[in-house]
């Protein structure tokens, strides 16, 4: 029986909370949202961009109407809730609607504070809060000339910039003597004012507004000091106040905002609140990041998931009006007990201030160059102790450049510093390659020095060195093909293979005019994969084009020995199986027996010639621990035994591993199945991970637990095990058909986009077609260990040859080859 969750408010904080709740526990609640504005959830912060002309209204919608329908949310827009009846647990709207609730969430946000000036009700006097205000400003700019913005804070300055873009004359009125005093110190503020004046804004500081003059429509603003300024439009951006009227009237505790505890609960039972209308530990937040944090906590609480609760947020702001770079975070004012490190360069228009307390960074202000903003913000949050070395925060170690942008990083590097860690290439070596060996492109530097030739992580640095040394215009941008043998991209190669029905790598390299007729270690395995993917039945796998591991079906180790990993489905074994593994390890004197991360057993240090016999004695299928293939499907215990398990994760995992084992893929693929949202199998860092929920399964994709850790994205939710297998098959086949050889699913997904993948798999007919193709490939696969054991031809490749010394008595081999050796002297 679902509980009724009703949310008053359809804004960013509230809807983000609902999204989180749906992820955690989609079936617990029947959700109703009541919103006053006639729009679906949109990004209010981007109204400034819409005003400035950088975005359109449709671009800022966060959740369109379809989202509400797809998630079975009952949405009432254009309704304002006028009364909360906490006794009857019902809310009433101004349209006469009455909605009952089990849990109520108040996310009513703020109302813009309108100065109660005489004349404030005239035409042409507005706030800057919603889409309607935005439209009014845009329309007004078409007919009128002069605008006044009252309020020189964050919002007011963004409104002013937007109005300037609409070609109005703009004056900003501020009661204080410097702008943005909540985010900037006086120095930073003065620099900001200078820059904005340069852009055309006029400032009237230390002016207190008195009366709005005009007839039906505003014509001007008079100040308390008697002076007056003309205006056709007045925008009030003097602050916001939490929208708490209905909560107050319902008897819920309200201070400045609706008072909530660490799980966002109010003083009334089953009533919660979050966002700009809520007050937590005395703070009402007006910036979005803390509100998202609040939403995450409330979602966990209502979903029944453990949470530590909300403990408040450290704030940071980046002024996002085009052209002006301002950043501030934490406690940036000079309080007693703090010490500040300042850099002020009026010539370049740069100001940086870092505030320390007890050696830790507690606040920062940046103007003109905000590249270090995120770094400073994370230092504030982490509380790292810089006692004794505070200057490093701004200047880096040893007084070098210290900034986080690539250009500065490269500038700051000394010549003997390593740029490419994988290959140990110094900055000097690269510069030398450019200056003395004439390298003008990344590819040439790679060929010359090996830099960026392994993991590729230093590519931005190398490119920067190129640009700095040569000058941006002289850098040669070469079209990069799949390797140095060709300029053709992966898509072009696969298209050619398909269209011209090329069947061997030799054909491909010949027909597509490879620079090297036999390719290289990069393209030969890639071509072998693409050919097998396009023509699984016709293409004969080319052993000579496989990496050693996939050829020998074992992992090569540093000393030329190999490792053997038999298949243990879903990480479940038996005493008999374990005994067999132990016996084989003993018989062949295996130096190291290790449990792997993939929930199976690795036998390391095996001599190549022992491999076929070991496989025969093990009598288990290959675990494919070495291949660009499906590796494992990790599982947690699930409902076979676990008290929290909602589904049989072990059964699901084993079914998946049996279905997809041996599948060859562009890069290794790791799967997992968790039996409940606690996710003990860590499914959400897998290429494809399945998480059981009450009544079904969630499928996550594109995760990665390696060098670039990435949490997987939700692909879909299904009810049955068969559907899991169908979606998995379709997804994997789509990956096989469109990714680059060597590209992990996380890279591929980020490159093509989750939306694109979802669209490709949306139609069931399309999914079934993909499944048909993957099954065709799977049906052709046989256990490789078994194949090798049964084929003399394949087996003998694991043995060494023996040298027979020439035998004088029988004449040995020399007699037989007498003819060939006629010109050579006989052996002594």
């Amino acid at each position, binding site marked *: 029986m679902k509980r009724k969750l009703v949310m008053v408010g359809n804004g960013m904080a509230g809807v983000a909370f609902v999204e989180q709740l749906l992820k955690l526990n989609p079936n617990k609640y029947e959700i109703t949202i009541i919103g006053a504005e006639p729009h679906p959830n949109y990004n209010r912060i981007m109204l400034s961009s819409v005003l400035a002309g950088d975005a359109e209204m449709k671009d800022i919608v966060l959740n369109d109407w379809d989202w509400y329908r797809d998630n079975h949310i009952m949405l009432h827009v254009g309704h304002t809730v006028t009364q909360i009846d906490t006794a009857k647990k019902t809310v009433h709207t101004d349209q006469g609607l009455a909605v009952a609730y089990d849990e109520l969430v108040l996310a009513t946000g703020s109302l813009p504070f309108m100065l109660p000036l005489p004349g404030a009700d005239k035409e042409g006097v507005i706030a800057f809060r919603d889409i309607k205000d935005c439209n009014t400003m845009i329309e007004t700019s078409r007919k009128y000339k002069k605008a006044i913005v009252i309020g020189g804070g964050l919002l007011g300055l963004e409104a002013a910039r937007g109005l300037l873009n609409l070609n109005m004359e703009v004056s900003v009125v501020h009661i204080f003597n410097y702008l943005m005093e909540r985010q900037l110190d006086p120095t930073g503020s003065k620099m900001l004012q200078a820059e904005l004046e340069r852009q055309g804004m006029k400032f009237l500081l230390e002016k207190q507004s008195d009366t709005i003059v005009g007839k039906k429509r505003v014509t001007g603003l008079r100040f308390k000091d008697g002076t007056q300024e003309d205006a056709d439009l007045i925008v009030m951006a003097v602050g916001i106040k939490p929208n708490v009227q209905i909560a107050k009237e319902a008897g819920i505790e309200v201070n400045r905002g609706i008072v909530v505890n660490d799980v966002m609960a109010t003083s009334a039972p089953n009533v919660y609140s979050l966002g700009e209308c809520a007050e937590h530990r005395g703070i009402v937040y007006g910036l979005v990041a803390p509100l998202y944090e609040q939403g995450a906590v409330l979602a966990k609480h209502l979903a029944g998931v453990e949470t530590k609760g909300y403990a408040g947020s450290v704030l940071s702001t980046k002024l996002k009006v085009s052209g002006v770079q301002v950043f501030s975070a934490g406690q940036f004012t000079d309080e007693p007990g703090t010490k500040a490190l300042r850099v002020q360069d009026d010539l370049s228009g740069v100001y940086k201030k870092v505030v320390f307390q007890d050696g830790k960074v507690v606040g920062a202000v940046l103007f003109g160059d905000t590249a270090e903003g995120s770094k400073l913000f994370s230092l504030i949050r982490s509380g790292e102790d810089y006692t004794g070395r505070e200057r490093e925060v701004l200047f880096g170690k040893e007084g070098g450049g210290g900034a986080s942008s690539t250009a500065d990083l490269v500038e700051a590097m000394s010549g003997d510093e390593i740029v490419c860690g994988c290959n140990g290439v110094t900055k000097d070596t690269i510069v030398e390659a450019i200056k003395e060996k004439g390298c003008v492109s990344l590819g040439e530097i790679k060929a010359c020095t090996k830099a960026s030739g392994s993991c590729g992580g230093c590519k931005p640095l190398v490119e920067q060195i190129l640009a700095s040394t040569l000058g941006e215009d002289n850098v040669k941008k070469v079209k990069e093909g799949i390797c140095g043998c060709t300029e053709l991209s992966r898509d072009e190669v696969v298209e050619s293979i398909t269209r011209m029905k090329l069947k061997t790598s030799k054909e491909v390299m010949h027909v597509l005019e490879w620079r090297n007729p*036999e390719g290289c*270690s990069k393209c030969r395995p890639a071509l072998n994969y693409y050919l097998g993917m396009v023509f699984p039945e016709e293409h004969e796998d080319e052993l000579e084009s496989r990496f050693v591991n996939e050829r020998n079906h074992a992992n090569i180790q540093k000393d030329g020995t190999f490792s053997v990993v038999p298949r243990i489905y879903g990480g479940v074994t038996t005493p008999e199986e374990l005994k067999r593994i132990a016996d084989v390890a003993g018989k062949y004197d295996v130096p190291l027996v290790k449990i792997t991360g993939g929930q199976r057993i690795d036998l390391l240090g095996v001599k190549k010639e022992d491999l076929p016999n070991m496989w025969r004695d093990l009598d288990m299928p290959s675990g494919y621990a070495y291949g660009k293939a499906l590796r494992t499907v990790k599982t947690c215990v699930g409902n076979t035994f676990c008290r929290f398990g909602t589904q049989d994760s072990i059964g699901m995992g084993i079914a998946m591993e049996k279905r997809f084992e041996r599948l060859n893929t562009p890069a290794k693929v790791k799967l997992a199945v968790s039996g409940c949202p606690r996710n003990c199998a860590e499914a959400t860092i897998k290429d494809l991970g399945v998480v059981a929920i009450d009544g079904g399964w969630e499928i996550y994709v594109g995760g990665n637990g390696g060098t670039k850790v990435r949490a997987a994205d939700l692909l879909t939710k299904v009810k049955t095990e068969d559907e899991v297998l169908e979606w998995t098959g379709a997804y994997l086949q789509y990956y096989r058909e469109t990714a680059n050889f060597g590209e992990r699913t996380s890279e591929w997904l980020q490159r093509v986009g989750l939306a694109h993948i979802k669209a490709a798999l949306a139609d069931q007919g399309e999914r079934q077609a993909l499944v048909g193709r993957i099954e065709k490939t799977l049906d052709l696969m046989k256990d490789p260990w078994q194949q090798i054991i049964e084929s003399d031809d394949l087996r003998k490749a694991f043995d060494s040859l023996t040298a027979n010394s020439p035998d004088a008595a029988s004449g040995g081999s020399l007699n037989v080859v007498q003819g060939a*050796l006629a010109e050579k002297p006989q052996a002594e």
Partner: protein
Amino acid sequence: MADIHIGHLSDFADRRARTVQWDGTEWAVFLLSDGTFRAIENRCPHKAGKLSEGIVCDHHVYCPLHDWKIDMNDGQVQAPDTGCVASIEVIHHEATGKIFLRTESVTLKQSS
């Protein structure tokens, strides 16, 4: 010094190698796609990788450990890496199909 018999043509596959111990060294003997043979010391100068397990492209082989590229005609490691491996001539007696290593043709390693 003589020719050492190590095997038969049928022991070899296109662009694959077989290994053989002789005179305290392990040799990797390759059959190239043009039907000719090459033999080099089965030990990459970088970190002693088994070159016999590498991918063969014309007369080059790539070490399976870290992808160093070696020219099997002269044993030289290709730029940007440096080094060399010993090489030895292979005799293929066409009439019988027997394969030999020509021991007196061993080129000495210049660096170890």
